[in-house]
């Protein structure tokens, strides 16, 4: 190699013009194609063209093939391990990440075929007693932040906020995107007051979907009597729970009793999810570390009426990055489960990450996350929606009791 490096003569000669022209054409074609696939400009409700602005960190991290890495990570961790290597391998993993092997079910480590299988491990019955309070933790993890939502903004970390509307799905000029659950203060707010999401300003009218409210066709679409062909988010009922199972009926009765006379009726387009007079919106953010039990449970007795799947990026959500990357939870792939509890609106949003990009919901078998197709850039209002109305004729949604397993995060 040294000899070749030192003694091979270098001969320079010009490329044929045709090759250069082809190269330039290919570069230009690729640039144009990328422009077409990434709609960097969107229009607000007034027809004004505005540009989507991302923090520079997003552009740098977004250039990395995080989704492909996530899927590769999932594939590698789904490979079946030899039986003899399983106990040692899983004990090593448990030691590194601090897993408690005494509480897992099944307890025989040889029964977990792969690391992905072990990662999604269950717990012995009774390992997690459910407290008798209004709200309990849905997962094992660390409380990153909690508090009252002020002016539609959730504080990600001190001084860095993101919009609750963007987290749960905000309306765009398309009526199908309107948000009836994103609760907002009852006090009248000047329509000129704006919420900014990823650099795009929206009027309060757009946020509330006032235009959509006055559209009889949109009303009919909400009722399921018609569908709008240009809607990017076809709303379908995907309830899969058998309505006549004893377990389901028991849970329905239990949730109905908990909601009681104070329950909020199923939220419709007209309800627009307004907070009841005197009530406030609260939030809680829980981070699950790699060694934590990665299934999530119902934090209270509530009815899930619909889900919104936001196919976004898959950045890491470690506290390190959370402190440095604004709007992280709004950019990442997530599933917003929206419904109601005894005090009104209730929403639960599992947010994916690079190593755990797949989100499972037990009562929604049609939900598919972390798909190989690269999704559109994380623009506001891009999501697919489904309802669970037929899961319970009484409650018009999927009833869940406190502590009931709902789903979980899988590797890759």
């Amino acid at each position, binding site marked *: 190699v040294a000899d070749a490096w030192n003694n091979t003569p270098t001969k320079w000669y010009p490329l044929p013009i045709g090759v250069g022209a082809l190269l330039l054409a290919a570069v230009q074609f690729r640039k144009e194609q990328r422009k077409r696939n990434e709609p960097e400009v969107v229009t607000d409700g007034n027809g004004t063209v505005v540009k989507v602005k991302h923090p520079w960190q997003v552009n740098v991290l977004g250039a990395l093939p995080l989704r492909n890495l996530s899927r590769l990570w999932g594939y590698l961790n789904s490979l079946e391990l030899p039986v003899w290597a399983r106990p040692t391998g899983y004990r090593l993993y448990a030691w590194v990440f601090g897993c408690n092997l005494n509480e897992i079910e099944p307890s025989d480590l040889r029964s977990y075929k792969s690391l992905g299988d072990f990662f999604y491990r269950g717990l012995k019955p009774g390992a997690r007693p459910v407290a008798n309070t209004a*709200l309990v933790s849905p*997962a094992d993890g660390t409380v990153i932040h909690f508090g009252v939502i002020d002016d539609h903004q959730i504080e990600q970390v001190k001084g860095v906020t993101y919009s609750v509307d963007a987290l749960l799905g905000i309306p765009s000029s398309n009526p199908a995107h309107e948000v009836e659950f994103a609760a907002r203060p009852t006090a009248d707010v000047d329509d000129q007051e704006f919420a900014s999401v990823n650099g795009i300003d929206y009027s309060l009218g757009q946020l509330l979907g006032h235009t959509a409210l006055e559209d009889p066709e949109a009303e009919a679409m909400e009722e399921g009597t018609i569908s709008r062909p240009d809607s990017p988010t076809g709303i379908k009922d995907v309830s899969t729970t058998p309505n006549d199972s004893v377990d389901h009926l028991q849970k329905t009765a239990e949730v109905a009793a908990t909601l009681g006379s104070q329950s909020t009726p199923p939220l419709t387009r007209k309800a627009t999810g307004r907070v009841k007079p005197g009530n406030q919106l609260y939030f809680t953010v829980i981070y699950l570390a790699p060694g934590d039990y990665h299934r999530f449970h119902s934090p209270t007795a509530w009815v899930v009426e619909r889900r919104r799947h936001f196919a976004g990026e898959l950045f890491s959500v470690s506290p390190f990055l959370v402190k440095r990357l604004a709007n992280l939870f709004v950019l990442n792939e997530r599933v917003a489960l929206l419904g109601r509890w005894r005090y009104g609106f209730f*929403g639960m949003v599992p947010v994916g990450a690079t190593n755990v990009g797949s989100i499972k919901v037990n009562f929604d078998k049609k939900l598919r996350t972390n798909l190989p197709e690269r999704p559109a850039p994380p623009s506001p209002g891009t999501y697919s929606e489904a309802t669970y109305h037929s899961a319970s004729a009484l409650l018009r949604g999927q009833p869940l009791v406190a502590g009931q397993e709902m789903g979980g995060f899988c590797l890759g």
Partner: protein
Amino acid sequence: STIVLVYEAPPNFQFNITPGQKVRVGQALGDV
């Protein structure tokens, strides 16, 4: 992975947690 809860509650809702606290499934987060 992260879970964000967003919910409506009366103003007397009290959190039983502190930032950075480790929690487990079923542990009390808050009460009215």
